């Protein structure tokens, strides 16, 4: 009845609904639209970053630099705005361009020199984080009215709840990504490369160009996520978002995307992020548990999903003897 390829996505969505309902049953005040909206408000930046990560993983690669690029973005923004007095209208396009360039360069090295994405993006992570510290070891606060406005503005929705502007940005990015993934040749080529790279080459697809674009897109998402994070934190700091890449990868995997590439949906990542948010919210509501429980639950979910993925792929491919 249901197309086999949608099963991982449905499992993820089902899991989210289950968790939200569980929370609602257990805690008064949980089952409200605002609680759901808060999930989006608090995790808007993660959602944007994870969307970029989705494309990278779909292409069969990985990007470990996203957390550091977010931090670098906050640092650059804060330093330019607070210390150099630049206007946001100049700063924001600049940091986005930096993110795109950064990603594109990593993609180029990965493709032209055939070095594993893991190591290249690892170097990228070191580099970005290091550049943060070069700018400043300490926090730089941002008090520019534009940023404070973005941080505090509430968009009222019919029904009494509200969301932040960041949420709108995040949702726009998700929509853009869905369009790219399903209605552009770039998106389809990404799936092809992740599915079977050597075939993609033989089929004449522009593998190199696509790969570099994928990493550039991830860089863009990282820097855009950084901009949104700046609205959230109103500061630039080298220790921001340490380990964010793991959260992003977890969101993508829990969202049903295969880590080996070629299979998965952006919408899945959306729910993967929501699931992380819901776990965090439940723990906050619980009050007595420390936030480190989040990591364990996410780790457990990761394990279950990876195991499921493995069983899935092992059954569809005929088991070969060596």
């Amino acid at each position, binding site marked *: 009845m249901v197309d086999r390829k949608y099963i991982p996505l449905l499992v993820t969505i089902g899991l989210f609904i289950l968790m939200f309902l569980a929370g609602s049953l257990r805690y008064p005040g949980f089952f409200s639209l605002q609680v759901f909206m808060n999930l989006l408000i608090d995790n808007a930046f993660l959602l944007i970053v994870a969307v970029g990560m989705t494309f990278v993983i779909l292409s069969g690669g990985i990007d470990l630099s996203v957390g550091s690029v977010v931090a670098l973005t906050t640092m650059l923004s804060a330093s330019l705005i607070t210390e150099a007095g630049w206007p946001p209208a100049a700063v924001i396009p600049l940091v986005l361009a930096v993110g795109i360039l950064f990603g594109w360069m990593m993609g180029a090295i990965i*493709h032209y020199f055939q070095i594993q994405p893991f190591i290249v993006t690892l*170097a990228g992570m070191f580099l970005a984080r*290091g550049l943060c510290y070069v700018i400043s070891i300490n926090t730089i606060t941002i008090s520019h009215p534009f940023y404070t406005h973005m941080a505090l503005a509430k968009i009222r929705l019919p029904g009494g709840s509200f969301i932040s502007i960041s949420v709108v940005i995040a949702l726009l990015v998700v929509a853009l990504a869905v369009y790219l993934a399903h209605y552009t040749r770039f998106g389809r080529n990404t799936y092809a490369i992740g599915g079977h790279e050597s075939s993609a080459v033989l089929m004449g697809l522009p593998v*190199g160009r696509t790969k570099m674009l994928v990493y550039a897109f991830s860089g863009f998402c990282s820097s855009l996520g950084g901009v949104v994070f700046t609205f959230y934190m109103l500061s630039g700091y080298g220790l921001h978002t340490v380990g964010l890449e793991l959260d992003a990868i977890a969101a993508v995997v829990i969202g049903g995307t295969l880590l080996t590439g070629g299979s998965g949906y952006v919408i899945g990542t959306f729910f993967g992020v929501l699931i992380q948010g819901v776990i965090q919210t439940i723990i906050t509501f619980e009050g007595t548990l*420390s936030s480190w429980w989040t*990591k364990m639950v996410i*780790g*457990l979910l990761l394990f279950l999903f*990876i*195991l499921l993925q493995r069983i899935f792929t092992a059954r569809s491919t005929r088991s070969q003897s060596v």
Partner: protein
Amino acid sequence: MSVRWWNKPLFWPLAVFGLLLLLNLIFKPEFFAIRYQNGHLYGSLIDILNFGSPLAIVAIGMTLVIATRGIDLSVGSLVAISGAMACLTISRGDDQHALSLVLTAVLLALLVSIALGLWNGLLVAGAGIQPIIATLILMVAGRGIAQLITSGQIITVTSKPYNFIGAGWLMTLPFSVYLAAAVFLFAAWMTRKTSLGMFIEAIGCNPTASRLAGIRSRSILLAVYMFCALCAGIAGLITSSNVSSADGNNAGLWIELDAILAVVIGGTSLSGGRFSLTGTLAGALLIQTLTTTIYMLGVPPEITLVVKAFVVLAVCLIQSPSFRRSLTRGIPWSPAASGQEVSRHG
């Protein structure tokens, strides 16, 4: 036909190492000063050995995993778990200075590490999950487990025997250096005096041929992941005993990356096969020297990360055949993927 000297795997790390030493010699000769005080040797060179021991130990375990064409991303979490386990046990005891208590704590911590290594190994060898994915699980969940053990606090202990592991001295040198040496010698003996080393290289180089030749791939993979976890456990004991406390959040943070870097610098390829424990030691030493040099030269330590980034990149580029080809030919490279890699015989 012998390998050109600049192609020999140990050349580049040693060259960079020499360069660093040179820099120090020129700008801060005190770098090489060694003082003898209270029966201990002090000095920057000693610091490098001391602080580099945990990294060296983890890197040794990582070398064997990488040699089998695998990777272990969870070692950082394992470091945290091991320290947490030990400190928890000691803090629960009546007399924290009691040797028996400390030994029990150490044993427990190492057993837990080995068990987690077995978990990783089962995922890889039993369930056939890609190593990078399999160990990612413990990497993420492991921090949570460490926090669970410490109940979210930083556990402090006051225990002379325990503190000795990380901060003690033995015959003028820090005790941790002896631990590192012991782990290295053990690994070297196991891999070269028995045929384990050859089997590991065979599995990493050509798993198909290895299976057809009758090598027990499954048990070797399990052993390798367990050993890597054990190494992480030992390193965890050293780092936590050094500060007499266990921090589930920060202990061993990103040590997996440094370890992988040390292995790669040391000449072992990420795609498995021939490995070099000596190379790994050199790599770990190099990374530590880098950190210390930067500190000694008064350069802001944040630069370390930037330098590390370039070192990683440089090493990988040098090891990449496409890069070497483009250098020797001097023409714009055409990556192998865009056409067919022409095989020499039809």
